């Protein structure tokens, strides 16, 4: 209850600040921390991406700002409603709640979910409260299976007895309790296809582990779950991604946090995450050269960007990795391993890499 009162208080403060501006005849303004590469830094001590203290003013009386301003305060009003009613809404539902038409016009406060999502992120920064604390949930998007028993809302769930679908990871994992942990590590896969492969091949049973996947970038719930398993039970986290700059960045976000969500890095980043994805050396080792998909211009551009992020820049191993990736002039997907045999990933690739400590950190 204490935490909830604090959240309510923080939201109210947002409004009070504006009301004071208005009372003293000042243009009502938010000071929004800037979420761009220019205002994030990599802290080598904590090995986290952290947000700087640069802010920008968002005015009501400014043609360029007015719409965003109204969206931000409208998001705050929505959060206030939720906190008072003790209910939760998904991002999609919040979008519909905010999509109001201004009376007497045809203007909607938001037209696309992208706009309400951004307004909520701004709210998190302005109040210092996470989306979940504001009673707003992301869509669940992730599957898990493995040697662990958890408790969620009073239900005991054994992740080794969930059939072919596995357990579906909710967006808020704060209240989950780990009851019995028999797993020795966690494998996180970028794509559902690899998760299905491992699940069918019973990798978690054979190797005493947990397998988790979401689609593309890991959702906040998945990241927080991985972080908790890593920190509370010291489980190593292995990250299984394609060989391309986008895959490497998925690993990067898991390990160091993201630029867009730098403000919650410490609640998300898994400092000990290990890269178990395809490496340029694997291409020769497993003879995958014929499966190269030529880089497009966007891929090359992204490669240069990722290569020069501060957290990779000082790391010789990673610089070598990116240089070799560039020399390949193409990407290789994990699915290409199927050419070596249907269960090659589960029976050879993963066990061998872990056994030989053939991962990158």
């Amino acid at each position, binding site marked *: 209850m204490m935490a909830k009162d604090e959240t309510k208080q923080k939201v109210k403060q947002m409004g009070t600040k504006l009301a004071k501006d208005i009372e003293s005849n000042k*243009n009502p303004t938010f000071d929004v921390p800037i979420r761009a590469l220019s205002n994030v830094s990599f802290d080598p001590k904590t090995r986290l991406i952290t947000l700087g203290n640069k802010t920008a003013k968002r005015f009501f009386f400014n043609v360029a700002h007015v*719409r965003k301003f109204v969206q931000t305060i409208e998001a*705050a009003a929505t959060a206030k409603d939720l906190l008072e009613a003790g209910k939760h809404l998904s991002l999609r539902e919040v979008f519909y709640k905010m999509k109001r038409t*201004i009376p007497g016009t045809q*203007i909607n406060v938001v037209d696309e979910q992208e706009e309400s999502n951004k307004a909520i992120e701004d709210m998190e920064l302005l109040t210092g409260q996470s989306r979940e604390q504001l009673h707003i949930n992301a869509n669940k998007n992730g599957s898990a299976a493995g040697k662990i028993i958890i408790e969620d809302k009073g239900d005991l769930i054994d992740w080794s007895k969930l059939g072919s679908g596995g357990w579906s990871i909710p967006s808020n994992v704060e209240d989950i309790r780990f009851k019995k942990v028999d797993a020795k590590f966690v494998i996180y896969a970028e794509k559902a296809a690899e998760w299905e492969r491992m699940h069918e091949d019973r990798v978690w049973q054979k190797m005493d582990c947990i397998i988790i996947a979401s689609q593309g970038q890991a959702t906040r719930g998945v990241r927080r779950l991985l972080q908790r398993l890593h920190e509370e039970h010291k489980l190593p986290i292995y990250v299984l991604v394609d060989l391309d700059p986008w895959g490497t960045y998925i690993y990067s976000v898991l390990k160091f946090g993201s630029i867009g969500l730098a403000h919650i890095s410490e609640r998300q980043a898994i400092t000990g995450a290990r890269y178990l994805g395809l490496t340029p050396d694997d291409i020769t080792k497993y003879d995958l050269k014929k499966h190269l998909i030529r880089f497009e211009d966007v891929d090359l551009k992204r490669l240069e960007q990722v290569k020069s992020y501060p957290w990779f820049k000082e790391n010789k191993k990673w610089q070598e990795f990116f240089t070799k990736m560039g020399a390949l002039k193409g990407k290789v997907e994990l699915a290409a391993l199927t050419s070596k045999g249907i269960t090659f990933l589960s029976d050879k690739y993963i066990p061998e890499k872990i056994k030989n400590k053939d991962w990158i950190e």
Partner: protein
Amino acid sequence: MAERESKIKTAEEMAGKLREISIAEFFEKNRHLLGFDNPAKALLTVVKEAVDNSLDACEDARILPEVKVSIREPRQVFRILTETGEEIARVVKEDNKVQMQVGDEKAKLTETKEPKKSETVYLFQHDVDTWKFRVYRTEKKGEDGKPFTEESYEAVRGRTEFKVAKQPADRYLISVEDNGPGIVKEHIPRVFGKLLYGSKFAGGKQGRGQQGIGISAALLYAQLTTGKPARIWSRTSASKPVHYFELRIDTTKNEPIIVDERTMKELDGKGLREHGIRVELEVEGKYIQRHHSVEEYMKQAAAVNPFAHLTYVEPDGTVIDFPRAVNELPRPAKSMKPHPHGVEMGMLERMLKLTDSRVLSGFLAKEFVRVGGQAANEVIKLARLKPDMKPKDMDHEQVERLWRTLQNYAFMKPPMDALSPISEEKFMEGVKKEYKPEFLAAVTRPPAVYRGNPFQIEVVMGYGGSLPSQGPGKLLRFANRVPLLYQAASCATTKAVQKVEWRHYGLDQTSGIPQGPVVVAVHMASVWIPYVSEAKEAIDPYPIIIKEMKLALQEAARRLQKYMSGKKRKEDAAQRTSLFEKYIPIAAEAIAKVAEVPEGKIQTALLGMLNKGEVVKEAEQAPDAEKVPEGEIKKTLKTAGEK
């Protein structure tokens, strides 16, 4: 050999065939030179020549002009058709006479009835058949709100109905009437019936006509295409009678032939109540609409002669009125002797032959402007001639030396009072009343000189209002208050317009022509307009003329741009205010809810700030303001702009 010899003609034989061709005869064969190339253009040229004369006469007599132009179909042919489209009879209406022909035979008109005001019935008898030809008239209103009469026709034989097809007209009766001073009886035949007759050819004064050809060429054209004589009425004052003439031109002698001549007390209530001229010509022509139409010509003439009241009656009876916008004539142009720089070699030779002066020095001082005794003597000395030479005795070589010296001698510029500009204010009024733009800029350049001829450029630009917002802007070309409708591409006005970078003045441009709701009117006033051809359709693009036009256009464009940017600023501010006005209620509601304060208080305070406007200005300039991508701002403004 013998055969070949028979083909050879001696010079003596050939000389027998040579004869002098009269000017009238020459133009009969080269009518395109005077603007009678095709039926549509000919119709317009006839109207133009008559109107030019009327306006010139009124201006010379310092009378505010009233000019009425009407065009009628003198002869209407109706073809009566069977189901299969074969003509079995025709009805011809000409000069109020109605005749019917069935096959090769004439039918007899037995009765004319008017059962209703809107209906006329003609009954014909042919053999045993009774024919009924019925004309219905319906009063209608055109798209532009002008009333006109639509006629429909019906033909019945006994009880059988037939289709009636009206033949497109190919000849028109053009009538132009003015309230000018009229012409004294003795002069009428020669003014109208002799080419190159009149005060104008001598030049020296700004006027619409400058050759004395126009109206007589129109008479010639009428005579050539329809064979009908011209009908002219003239009256010099209300207390004097009306003189009526029917005239033809003897093309070999270039002399008028009087077909009929009458003097009448009154014109049975049909015009010429005080003084003025009425000319009626029946010509072959084609009636067209839009660009090169008579209506377009009248509209432009009304714009450039805002002191004139013009009326135009179209063939279907539609009356288009072009009311007067100003009640004051432009200042009269003074006559000017030729300037030595403007005289051509041949003209100089002719002047020397015709002069009354007995000595060369006297000739120069008397016949030219800006040549005093001292200048005359200097020129004579430079040309190695003698002051007391007899002008008539000079040989060709001497004349040429004199001419060259005259061209190179630095005389004073010609006097500018020979010019009669419309004036910025009046020209603006004219364009305003005819094109109804929302903004107008007028520029009159100081007088300038080309080849010894003084000239002056006037420009009016109009923007917005009733002008069409899409497509190329309208260019109006005028020379001595006469609209120029043909040969736009070779005209100095067009070339000057194309030399202006309209883009720099905030207007779109395509091939040098400004686009959008713009009208550009360019007027050249001069003692002598350098036309590209005798048809007087385009101004010769002398560099100095183009330069003057361009300067005037640029100045007008600058003023227009200033107006437009002021307008845009105002619109932006208004758009801003309305944008915030829309967002205030919802912002106030949300802030009030989050801060737990009364909503009304927040809303009132925000509206107060908006009305003061200062906070809004500051925010736009705050250095640490959040940067928002251009696209998002556009989206905000766009959604706010929705209604």
